[in-house]
């Protein structure tokens, strides 16, 4: 039973309809949680004893950073599935992730710069974590550029899949760079064993932002995925039924 479900995930019409049904759920829940979380983060949560109001950048910066690597990992896994088992829908998922991931990465770098100026005194430092995050941006851009340079969709899919898989080594580098090297960056305060070292009144909006961003990403991904499937399958007959409904 579980196997047929998995098998159906390889079928573009099934995935299209599934995405169509799920998108509103993700979109609405993302909207509600993000609005709530933002209000909590900006208004309800108290100022930090060290940084004052400036620390609130954390509520965008940390979720963006988390998303940038999470999306890349998703993209790499989808690409690997598509490459190994030759499932076209998996390639469509990977393609849909790329621009979203690049945007999250750019947002991470930008919010990091805006936060870094008041906190460290500089917009940019070449510490390991920032450098590897910048490398991640280049990986995304390289992925998008490589896809764009082939007319043949199959070649574009497979070549970019190899790139995505090779680049996945950057993700652990980003996460563990603060552990392995002396870095200006704080070590992990949430994602570590033991209790988080951050006050609950700040932790809750932060976790809510994480959740909201993830749901937001899911909604966007499913929307882009539908567009991607339509583009790839435009010659197929099931498209006409879908567009008629």
């Amino acid at each position, binding site marked *: 039973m579980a196997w047929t479900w998995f098998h159906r995930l390889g079928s573009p019409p099934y995935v299209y309809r599934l995405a169509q049904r799920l998108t509103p759920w993700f979109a609405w829940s993302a909207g509600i949680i993000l609005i709530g979380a933002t209000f909590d983060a900006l208004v309800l949560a108290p100022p930090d004893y060290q940084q004052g109001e400036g620390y609130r950048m954390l509520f965008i910066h940390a979720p963006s950073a988390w998303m940038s690597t999470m999306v890349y990992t998703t993209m790499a896994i989808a690409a690997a599935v598509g*490459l190994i088992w030759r499932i076209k829908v998996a390639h469509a998922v990977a393609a849909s992730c790329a621009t979203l991931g690049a945007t999250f990465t750019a947002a991470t770098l930008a919010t990091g710069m805006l936060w870094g100026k008041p906190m460290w005194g500089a917009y940019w430092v070449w510490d390991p974590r920032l*450098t*590897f995050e910048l*490398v*991640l941006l*280049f*990986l995304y*851009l*390289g992925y998008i*550029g*490589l896809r764009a*340079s*082939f007319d043949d969709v*199959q*070649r574009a899919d*497979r*070549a970019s899949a*190899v*790139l995505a*898989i*090779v*680049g996945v080594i*950057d993700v652990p*580098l980003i996460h563990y760079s603060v552990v392995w090297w002396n870095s200006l960056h704080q070590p992990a305060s949430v994602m570590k064993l033991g209790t988080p070292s951050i006050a609950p009144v700040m932790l809750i909006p932060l976790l809510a932002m994480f959740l909201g961003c993830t749901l937001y990403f899911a909604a966007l991904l499913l929307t882009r995925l539908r567009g991607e499937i339509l583009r790839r399958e435009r010659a197929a007959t099931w498209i006409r039924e879908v567009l008629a409904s």
Partner: protein
Amino acid sequence: MSALATAVLSPAAVSSPLDAARLVVARDLKLAFRNREQIVQPLAFFAIVITLFPLATTAELSRLREIAPGALWVAAFLAALLALEFLFRDDSQDGTLEQYALSGQSLTWLILAKTATHWLLTGVPLALVSPLAAGALGVPWEATPGILAGIALGSFALSLVGAIGAALTLGVKRGGVLLSVLVLPLAVPVLIFGARATQLAIAGQSYVAALELLAAMAVLGVTLAPLAAAAAVRISLE
């Protein structure tokens, strides 16, 4: 004559992987020496980029010495990128890569042989010339061993990692810039530790730890990069 066509493929007749690798290396070396642009162009480019630094910044040797590690590695990286264009281009165009893929030998192994030869032809000359370039930037001669070793190891790692990019961009028109974008993320660790090793060498301090890290990267590259490059080559043949 028909005896040739009917000769049974006895196990003795089939080439071993070592035989095949030796032939790949020999062929690439022979071709490079008959058409030397593959060796000369990257070296010339390296020299030009090095020259740009004193022209663009300062002629004072003491200040040039400070930027020397960065300048050497920027120039080496750019020269390596230029050299990477030669790695698969000809073989892809005349069908040699296709024959490798159909030879019954491991494509990964043959690509490793090609990449190693490529390094011998481009990375090693670069390493040999780098002390001269460093001298032009005010670096004391004592730093030569460190610089040589660093650039030799680093260019090897760059060749390995660059082979992946070169294989992915096979057949892409004007793929040079795309190649740079693809290789840069994978080359960043090499650049960081290579420049560090050079910096330590110039300062007269022990650079062994940084070299060991470079060597570790090269070893990791040797095991993984040819696999990815072979996958990319097969994709380009589809």
